[in-house]
């Protein structure tokens, strides 16, 4: 029965169709990896082959890591993404807790401001925030990459929705045990909200690792470029027809997220679609 089902024409048709669309979807990545292992002469050979005849991967990757400071781009990306995430959690979690569980004058106005923030794409804020960074003398620095994103309306919104599901009795019990509101946030509420924390963290890191718009506005020095801007600059300086090192560079930029995705597919899909379902 099972074997009969597996060889049913519609089952085979489904696999054929999905393998075809899947191959087309992966084509740019496959081409990227293939070129990153080829020598310049071989790239322009007529005739199609995925595997290089002469492996040139070592030279290409070595040049990507030395000629363009690829490692530096990746390091910048990691520093910026994790600084943003840490500050976002530090600032948004207490605020979301107050909005979800505490009664105070101005709570609705505050939440209204969060909803207004949700409505604004960051490209709209770029001009005034750029001027702010100029006034603060932080243009062309890590601070300019980090500061504009340390409060996330989406994070506050997501956490507030989640915190509301925590029963008040637990919080009352903690208060009777003598815990301050501050300790309740970090010792009771956060450990109970791990799924929301993970979903938001993935959303935040992926968004800022991939962002090109804001870095291209505030960063001019090569040494400070995050990965996406680094790739753009690398493509700009790469002269002639030697695309191998450039392709090796793109592989290295895409790789960290792809590895993380392979390890935690479900979390990634939930984290990245949660923003749409807000």
């Amino acid at each position: 029965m099972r074997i009969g089902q597996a060889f049913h024409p519609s089952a085979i048709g489904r696999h054929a169709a999905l393998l075809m669309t899947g191959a087309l979807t992966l084509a740019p990545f496959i081409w990227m990896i293939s070129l990153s292992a080829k020598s310049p002469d071989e790239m322009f050979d007529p005739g199609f082959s995925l595997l290089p005849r002469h492996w040139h991967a070592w030279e290409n990757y070595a040049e990507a890591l030395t000629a363009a400071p690829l490692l530096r781009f990746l390091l910048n990306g990691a520093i910026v993404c994790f600084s943003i995430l840490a500050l976002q959690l530090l600032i948004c979690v207490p605020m979301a807790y107050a909005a979800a569980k505490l009664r105070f004058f101005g709570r609705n106005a505050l939440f209204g401001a969060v909803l207004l923030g949700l409505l604004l794409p960051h490209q709209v804020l770029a001009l005034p925030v750029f001027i702010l960074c100029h006034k603060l003398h932080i243009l062309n620095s890590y601070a300019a990459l980090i500061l504009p994103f340390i409060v996330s309306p989406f994070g506050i919104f997501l956490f507030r929705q989640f915190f509301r599901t925590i029963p008040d009795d637990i919080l009352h019990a903690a208060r009777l045990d003598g815990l301050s509101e501050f300790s309740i946030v970090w010792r009771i509420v956060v450990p109970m909200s791990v799924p929301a924390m993970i979903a938001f963290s993935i959303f935040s890191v992926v968004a800022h690792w991939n962002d090109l718009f804001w870095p291209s506005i505030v960063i001019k020095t090569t040494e400070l470029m995050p990965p996406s801007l680094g790739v753009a600059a690398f493509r700009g300086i790469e002269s002639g027809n030697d695309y191998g090192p450039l392709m090796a560079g793109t592989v290295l930029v895409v790789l960290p997220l792809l590895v993380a995705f392979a390890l935690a597919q479900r979390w990634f899909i939930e984290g990245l679609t949660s923003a749409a379902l807000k």
Partner: protein
Amino acid sequence: MMPSAAMSGHGAQTATSKPARLKTRVVDRFSEPIAAYLLALPGGALLALLFILPVIAVFVIATTNWSFGGTSLSFVGMRNFRDVFADSTFRMSFLNTIVYVLIVVPGTIGLGLLIALLIEARPSLRGFYRAIHFLPFMATLAASAVAWEMLLHPTMGLVNQAFSALGLPTANWLRDEKTVLPVLALIGIWQNLGFAMVLFLAGLKAIPADLYEAADIDGADGWFDRLRTVTLPMLGPVTMFVVVVVAIRAFEVFDTIAILTQGGPGRASEVLLYTLYRESFEYLRTGYGAAVTVVFLGIIVTLTLVQVGVMEKRVHYS
């Protein structure tokens, strides 16, 4: 939306005597607002500094003739907006963006729905197919764009090699005014496809199985009948929602333009966000850039409000 972190607090409640609870209530009345302000203050202040004040500033700057770095500044009223709409580059940019969105949205919705239906049709390899179709959505677009450029390379690119082998016409896809926008839209579809697919998969899961049983009893037993009478009507609200979300993402196209074409050849791939970027940060026409920003904001806010309306409708369906 999220599974509730359930853990019952009944034990604590019964363990406390009534007078003790009343006493903490009284203390709460004073300490709760103070604690709340302390917890919410950093976030609230930053929200004002980085979101609320800037968006007000954009509207104010848009009514001035300010050039960043310049010393003179005066109020010019609506002149920037008149200039924006009279500017042939902006009109071109606006039109190109609309064309781009009109290709990306139906393409993404159609393919995303098709792939979601195929994946959901049978259980085997579901996770695998979902993962490979979702990859482009999370991969760094700046890097993917460079890979696309190589695929589309006029001589060594896989696309032209394959097309000439099949006897199809080849082109310098990103340097030809006629092909550049459709090709960029194709990359947009490629990137957003997996996102639409995941949202459709969630929508398909939410269709109650008894509807299919009812359709069976009514004689709709072929897959096409089931699709027509149950699946597609039930996906209506989800589809509206995906259309709006993908449209917003399409209006925000920037990375592929900035890396691959810089708006060219000519102005054939000039789009709104790229015009905004150039006017504000390359030409430093700050007042004019702010006016472009206000137009862009108008489009996004309108779409987002449509999205909120659609979401509220969805509540009635579920």
